[in-house]
């Protein structure tokens, strides 16, 4: 719990919160280019958030305290998660308080509060969104846990910083079980971040929405915080993927906060490539019917379990 560790922790959190909307803007831009459209500005999400903060909040008549506090709680949970995931450095004092399982728990906290807030107003779309979101979450959360378990069995610990230390700073080795975990993780992050093929983030047809249907009643600063939290969630998932599968370049413990800052450009590059790949996957796939989502996520779950079994068999 040194001062350098604290500094690197705060630095990482600040960079995560600041860069998250930029990642969303980049993915939207790539998607527009791939679809032969002219792209919106890279900083459009920032402008949207600023615009929303300035507005008056309109709250529905039947809303209770849950509706008004949910955006803050979800944002808080996502910030907490961003503080645990080692995106820039592994010297994170806060990571000792929460490990990979607690990370999944934080995501679950955010999801449950969103679903409850969606049901709070008492409209048909709110409960539709809540039901679908909990359904996707019920299948995606175990798959994510299994992926993290595979990584933790390889590295002998469930703490994300130790996992990254083991995978990045030991000599190069190929882990076949991580191949399974990688495919499963991609599928899970597509589902959890409300991307095609599970949910269309740009749709305006209510019956095809999952994530959007839950936040239909929100406006102004509440909506701004929710959008920011969604961007942070995408950022966190990308960083988890990078930490598990491409951990090269993350500063090791004891390197000091200058090394943390120096790892930032590499992170930006990796995220840019990841964002472009995400836009590519979104463009090449079509949105599935909601009834096919259990098959999709079930496949991800079983692949992750298979990864664990392969790990048992091959020892890696």
């Amino acid at each position: 719990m040194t001062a350098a560790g604290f500094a690197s922790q705060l630095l990482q959190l600040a960079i995560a919160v600041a860069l998250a909307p930029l990642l969303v803007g980049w993915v939207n831009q790539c998607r527009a280019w791939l679809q032969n459209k002219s792209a919106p500005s890279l900083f459009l999400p920032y402008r949207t958030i600023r615009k929303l903060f300035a507005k008056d909040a309109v709250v529905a008549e039947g809303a209770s305290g849950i509706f008004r506090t949910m955006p803050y709680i979800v944002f808080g949970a996502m910030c907490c998660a961003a503080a645990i995931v080692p995106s820039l450095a592994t010297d994170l004092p806060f990571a000792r308080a929460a490990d990979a399982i607690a990370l999944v728990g934080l995501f679950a906290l955010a999801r449950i509060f969103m679903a409850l807030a969606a049901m709070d107003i008492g409209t048909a779309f709110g409960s539709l969104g809540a039901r679908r979101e909990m359904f996707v979450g019920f299948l995606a959360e175990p798959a994510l846990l299994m992926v993290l378990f595979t990584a933790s069995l390889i590295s002998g610990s469930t703490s994300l910083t130790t996992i990254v230390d083991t995978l990045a700073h030991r000599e190069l080795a190929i882990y076949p079980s991580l191949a399974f975990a990688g495919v499963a993780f991609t599928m899970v992050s597509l589902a959890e971040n409300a991307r095609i093929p599970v949910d269309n983030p740009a749709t305006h047809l209510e019956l095809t929405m999952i994530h959007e249907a839950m936040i239909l009643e929100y406006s102004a600063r509440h909506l701004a915080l929710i959008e920011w939290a969604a961007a942070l969630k995408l950022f966190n998932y990308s960083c988890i993927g990078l930490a598990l599968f491409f951990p090269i370049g993350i500063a090791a413990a004891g390197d000091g906060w200058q090394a943390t800052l120096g790892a930032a450009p590499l992170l930006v590059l990796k995220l840019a490539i990841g964002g472009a790949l995400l836009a590519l996957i979104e463009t090449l796939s079509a949105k599935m019917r909601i009834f096919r989502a259990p098959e999709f996520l079930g496949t991800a779950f079983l692949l992750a379990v298979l990864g664990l079994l392969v790990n048992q068999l091959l020892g890696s």
Partner: protein
Amino acid sequence: MSGVPLYAQFINLLAAILLLLAFAMLAQRRVLSLVNLFAAQGVALALSTAIVAFATRQPHLYGSALLTVLLKVALLPWLLHRLIQRLDVKWDVEGLINVPTTMLIGIVLVVFAFNLAFPISQLASTVTRSTLGIAIASVMLSFLMMITRRKAIPQVIGFLAMENGLFFAATSATYGMPMVVELGIALDILVAMLILGVFFFQIREQFDSLDLKHLERLKE
């Protein structure tokens, strides 16, 4: 993991990819994707044979890898594509059991295969002997695919994928089979494909569809 040499790690990775592809075939509905996955399996197989050839310095395995590429990546998929075009079959209906249940059964089979292979692989002497379990598992998964599909083409692909698994078992556990055996098996596969192709046309003529449950009517 540092005690295992690099080539063995690569072969482990390719084994994992083979199992991944076998599982993916189990979950696929579209016949064209099945053929492409089968071709990808052939590529993985050829790569692993080539690595084994490089590491153990047995040049005849290079020939075996070349044969695999010619047959399983080029010829058989091309034949299958032509068959699909002539029979005009693009989509497979829902199998006998739905996809999630099939995959659950698949996981159970994988556990069974891993347990089966563990004492056997202790007897083998190669570095990659732990991949024997994966090979047996992919054979079983291909068999499951043959059982749970209703149309004829996926069943054929399941049969071919079984042979892939057996081939992989041979190269990983015993560093390759004698060339005679290989050529014999390759010829058998080719002949089987030709006969099945003719067979499918006859079925199509008779029943106007490739759904195999029509064959059950023959018993009356």
